[in-house]
């Protein structure tokens, strides 16, 4: 496991036109990142509609000490110069069982466009990990690399390693189909198939050729209950999935994803197309599914990240900047950029 400021030497990449927002440029270089923190990593749970967590709400502002001020100055300078930056990983991550280990992972969309720069990240098993960051920072790309959905895009080139449950995701002999079955995915826009609700849920079983009616019915009910949708649709399982509301469709997609009994649920902005009530239901669902599944959720909504996640990763222009327990990252971030982002000063 890494220290709070791990050193890894990623090769220098060709510069990309700078896109750093003005606010970040003007943000003073590291003054004194905080180290004081609450050791319990319980997520900050708030009801939808609650005002954003004010950073000042911490009981008492601990004295800000810089563990390595020079390292942070260098990191900020590196990001502004479009160079790879070291991730500031909080020590709590080391206490978790890493189900998915991403190390020095780099992704190029073609020869010149590099989307991810040396990502080092260990995803905690059974926990909810949120990925936040401004648009285009590579959150979705990283998420879609985990179940190799980026394989569908031409010209994607990958370096570094990603190890899922002891198995290299990008190894030559890996069974991609099997891998994807172990990682359910929920997309930004609900995308039920043009089939009945029932057929949507049991889709993964159909792929395996399951024909036993009893098994299909049982999985359908269990998955729909798991996605908190059963009571709403149990009388119309064989009606079209398009008759459901947006929020119901998204929960149907979650049911479809958990029907295959995956270990990991990848969620790519699952609530961005939903109204606050539907969002609240999905968040409640994520809260209930924690522990049972390892959930990785990409979100633009920082309050949502704060509400649902145990760990939060802050990404910025293709780098993982800071990664740690959600409450620490939101209340006492180690990096200036993180603080600027979570308090809404840029991004």
């Amino acid at each position: 496991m890494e220290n709070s400021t791990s050193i890894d030497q990623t090769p220098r990449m060709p510069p990309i036109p700078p896109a750093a927002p003005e606010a970040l440029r003007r943000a003073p270089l590291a003054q004194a990142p905080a180290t004081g923190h609450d050791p319990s990593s319980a997520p900050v749970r708030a009801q939808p509609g609650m005002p954003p967590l004010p950073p000042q709400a911490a009981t008492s502002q601990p004295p800000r000490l810089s563990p390595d001020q020079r390292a942070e100055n260098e990191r900020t300078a590196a990001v502004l110069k479009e160079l790879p930056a070291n991730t500031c990983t909080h020590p709590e991550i080391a206490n978790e069982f890493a189900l998915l280990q991403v190390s020095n992972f780099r992704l190029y969309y073609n020869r010149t466009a590099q989307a991810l720069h040396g990502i080092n990240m260990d995803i905690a098993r059974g926990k909810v990990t949120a990925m936040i960051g401004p648009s285009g920072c590579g959150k979705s790309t990283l998420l879609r690399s985990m179940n190799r959905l980026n394989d569908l895009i031409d010209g994607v080139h990958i370096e570094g390693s990603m190890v899922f449950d002891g198995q290299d995701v990008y190894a030559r002999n890996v069974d991609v189909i099997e891998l994807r079955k172990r990682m359910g995915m929920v997309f930004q826009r609900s995308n039920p198939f043009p089939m009945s609700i029932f057929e949507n849920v049991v889709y993964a079983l159909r792929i395996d050729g399951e024909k036993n009616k009893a098994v299909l019915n049982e999985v359908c009910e269990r998955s729909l209950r798991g996605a908190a949708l059963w009571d709403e649709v149990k009388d119309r399982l064989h009606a079209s999935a398009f008759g459901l509301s947006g929020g119901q469709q998204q929960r149907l997609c979650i049911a479809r994803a958990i029907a295959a009994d995956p270990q990991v649920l990848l969620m790519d902005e699952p609530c961005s197309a939903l109204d606050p009530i539907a969002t609240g239901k999905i968040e409640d669902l994520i809260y209930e599914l924690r522990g049972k599944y390892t959930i990785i959720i990409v979100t633009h909504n920082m309050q949502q990240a704060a509400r649902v996640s145990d760990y939060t990763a802050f990404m910025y222009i293709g780098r993982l900047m800071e990664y740690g327990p959600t409450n620490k990252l939101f209340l006492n971030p180690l990096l200036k950029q993180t603080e600027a982002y979570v308090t809404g000063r840029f991004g």
Partner: protein
Amino acid sequence: MGTPLYNTLSRARSHTAFVLSIAFTITILLLLGLVIGYIAFIGLKSLSLDFFTKLPTGDPHNPGGMFNALVGTTILIAIAGAVGIPIGMLTGIYLCEYSANSFLATPVRFVCDVLAGVPSIVVGILGYELLVVPLGHYNGWAGALALAFIMIPIVARTTEEMLRLVPQSYREASIALGATKAWTILKVVVPAASGSIVTGIMLAVARVAGETAPLLFTALGSRYLEKDPSHPFPSLTKQIYDYATGPYPELKRQAWAGILVLIAMIFTLNLTMRLVARSKHVAS
């Protein structure tokens, strides 16, 4: 810009556009009504039960019916569809789903576009050279395959275009659930586009059902009730052509009736297929 003159002019222009578009729409509808009405008016007069049940007698004053031609056209279209629709659809699926990095994609697409525009008489000559001359006599297979040849590029290009309209998110969701590409195409992508693909296929069927030129040199036509496609084969269009170009008024009237029946056949087929293919699960 906001001068009164400008406003008046732009308002006048927008009014003109509105009036013109309405006028042209009505003109087209009137023309269509005129054609169908005229055919129906003349055709209905000679349409009787005999037309559907009797064979041609050969007597120009007492011509009998066109039962053989109705059966012949149905069989020709069935064979042409059985050959042309699968090949066309598979080509369309290849073009849309599999050819992304292939050097074949552009040539295949280009050839399809060219073939779709080739005059049907050319296809007839080709069928004659390849399937009639080697066999030594005119036959139904040659006619059906010539029609299939006309269908393939139309079906291929429509299928491709319709599959392109299926949202990428369907494919991603299916792949993310562990489906293979073939399964995804078969179970999600094609069913999602089935309605519009069927419409495209029906257009192709309607097109070949009305073709005469490719059949002139291939199926030739027959006065008998033919069920074996290896013989000269009757078809509605060829019989209409023969009757309409002949000198006998009684036969000319039969031709009108034949045209009416042909239009009705295509219309009915189109409607039924649409009803059958109408998906229960249509995205809102």
